[in-house]
């Protein structure tokens, strides 16, 4: 087995290519990351009523997420405790029970085994139904309405897991009136490792001008992002354009000041969003302060470790579900603010699907990169090498207002380095106690030169 403590060099911004290829590393990722971290499940707005449910995956485990009688949300492994068949084939809906399609065992929405056909006759009343409920996901909690689950009862709370990133995320997730996802998600296969889209979304503003040279030119003529088109020059020093952050738990983002508007097809649509933002901004400033009011008006690309990415601007919200080292299922939603007028919500959803949906013009431009970044490492000699995420090294700092480690360079790979720092730490650490012990000194890897 490979020495996982040597895969990542945070200080110098170097990663082993093997993390995109080796089955043994992937298996360890499932055990140490996906079975221990908080993973995105759904949004409160998609399951508002008792019995509302969705099905999804945590790592490669199929789960059902369902609203209980008491209003709480619980999640269960979607596999019958009898012979293992799934108990729910639908993606979403409302139900009073989950019935296995194999022999008809029926479970309540609380996961308990309620009905066993011919129980008296074939089990002679000796089946202990109490111990045959669905396996429950240990922890389920929500942050600003976004529901996450965690298989590990020893894990920190969701809020603690998000750490410094929570302060940033509130700038858009906790908009006045709240946010919601527009369901259902689109679902598509990509032949890449689950980390390649995560590292792209976590703050790669360098690729915007080049990968998306074509679509930025056609679609973003009214946007500050247009300045990046072609990667030929920068109109202002990168520190004027925005910032970068990383956090204890590897979550990070790039924030481009003033970039949230200007990406819609018509002037009228752009004006409608800008008017909305202008009306909300004073409320955001009052509740969250001037810095986050500026972030509220900015374009973001970010990733919540390990596999949950988002954009502010093109309001996409994504999960990258792993399917082995070389494939993922991408789930894509649109996020909007709950109080927005219906027409503005539709404009945002249309734009999101045109840019980052299954027929999205920018999405397809990203995909080839994510796939070839993965597939090149099928070559033995190729994967002996390392990868470079050194951009912005030496420009990291702490700030009195902004938590975590930040950089004033918006085009930067600080958040990549933070993502892989925590990635390696999760692979190495045997327990959450071990991870907690590192929490006082995590910044050193970024700040000490």
């Amino acid at each position, binding site marked *: 087995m490979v020495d996982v403590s040597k895969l990542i060099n945070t200080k110098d911004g170097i990663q082993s290519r093997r993390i995109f290829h080796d089955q043994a590393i992937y298996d360890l990722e499932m055990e140490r990351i996906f079975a221990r971290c908080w993973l995105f499940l759904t949004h409160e707005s998609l*399951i508002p*009523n008792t019995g509302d449910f969705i099905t999804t995956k945590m790592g490669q485990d199929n789960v059902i997420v369902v609203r209980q009688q008491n209003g709480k949300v619980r999640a269960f492994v979607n596999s019958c405790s009898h012979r293992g068949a799934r108990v729910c084939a639908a993606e979403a809906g409302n139900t009073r029970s989950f019935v296995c399609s194999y022999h008809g065992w029926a479970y309540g929405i609380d996961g308990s085994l309620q009905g066993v056909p011919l129980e008296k006759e074939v089990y002679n009343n000796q089946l202990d139904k109490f111990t045959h409920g669905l396996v429950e996901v240990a922890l389920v909690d929500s942050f600003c309405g976004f529901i996450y689950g965690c298989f590990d009862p020893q894990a920190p709370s969701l809020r603690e897991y998000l750490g410094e990133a929570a302060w940033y995320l509130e700038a858009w997730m906790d908009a006045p009136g709240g946010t919601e996802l527009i369901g259902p998600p689109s679902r598509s296969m990509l032949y890449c490792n689950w980390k390649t889209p995560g590292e792209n979304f976590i703050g790669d503003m360098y690729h915007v001008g080049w990968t998306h040279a074509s679509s930025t030119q056609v679609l973003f003529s009214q946007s500050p992002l247009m300045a990046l088109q072609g990667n030929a020059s920068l109109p202002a020093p990168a520190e004027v354009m925005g910032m970068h952050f990383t956090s204890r738990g590897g979550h990070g983002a790039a924030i481009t000041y003033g970039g949230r508007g200007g990406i819609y097809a018509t002037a009228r649509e752009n004006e409608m969003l800008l008017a909305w933002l202008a009306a909300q901004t004073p409320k955001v400033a009052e509740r969250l302060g001037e810095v986050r009011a500026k972030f509220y008006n900015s374009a973001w690309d970010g990733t919540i470790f390990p596999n949950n990415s988002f954009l502010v601007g093109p309001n996409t919200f994504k999960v990258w579900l792993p399917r082995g080292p070389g494939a993922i299922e991408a789930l894509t939603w649109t996020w909007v603010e709950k109080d927005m007028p219906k027409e503005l919500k539709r404009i945002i959803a249309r734009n999101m699907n045109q840019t980052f949906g299954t027929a999205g013009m920018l999405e397809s431009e990203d995909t080839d990169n994510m796939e070839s970044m993965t597939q090149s490492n099928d070559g033995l000699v190729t994967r002996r090498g390392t990868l470079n995420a050194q951009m912005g090294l030496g420009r990291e700092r702490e700030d009195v207002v902004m938590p975590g480690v930040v950089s004033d360079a918006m085009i930067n790979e600080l958040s990549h380095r933070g993502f892989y720092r925590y990635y390696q730490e999760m692979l190495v650490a045997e327990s959450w106690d071990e991870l907690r012990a590192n929490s006082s000194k995590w910044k050193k890897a970024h700040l000490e030169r």
Partner: protein
Amino acid sequence: MTKHNNEREVTREVRDEIERFLFREARLIDSEQEREWLETMVDAEITYQVFSRQLRYRKDTRGSGDKEVYFFDDNYADLAHRVELCENGMQWVADPPNRLRRIVGNIEGFEGERAGEYRVYSNCMVTRNRMVYEQMSYAYGREDILRRGVDGRLKLLQRVVDFEERFVRGKNLLFIL
């Protein structure tokens, strides 16, 4: 697919015209003549929609939220953007070129709700070959409305595709369906 009662089939002559329209459209799109398609075959008032339907139980009428997600919800200007993307020479994903090949079949034509409009059903099988190793296939049904313009020629006024493959194995649908 929408269920329509009392549908009146078009005449054999119009049916031939519809078929010629769909075949020409297929040829233009598959041979990278998207602009010719847009400018000669697409009505300025077009609604072009492709959606995917979340899988729910037949009996379930109480579930919350929308059941459909629209991959395309385009008007003429949106389609024009997609065509521009193909033309500006910077679309790295189409360079080397992608090759599309489609079979259009099961064509049925009916008189539309307004004079000069026809409701047209067709099925498509599309294969997309791209880069050295990628081959992807897509099968779907289309429900179109064609409208006869003042010049007497048919144009595409509405296209709705209820895309059946819930989990798109062919990565993306960045082509004219």
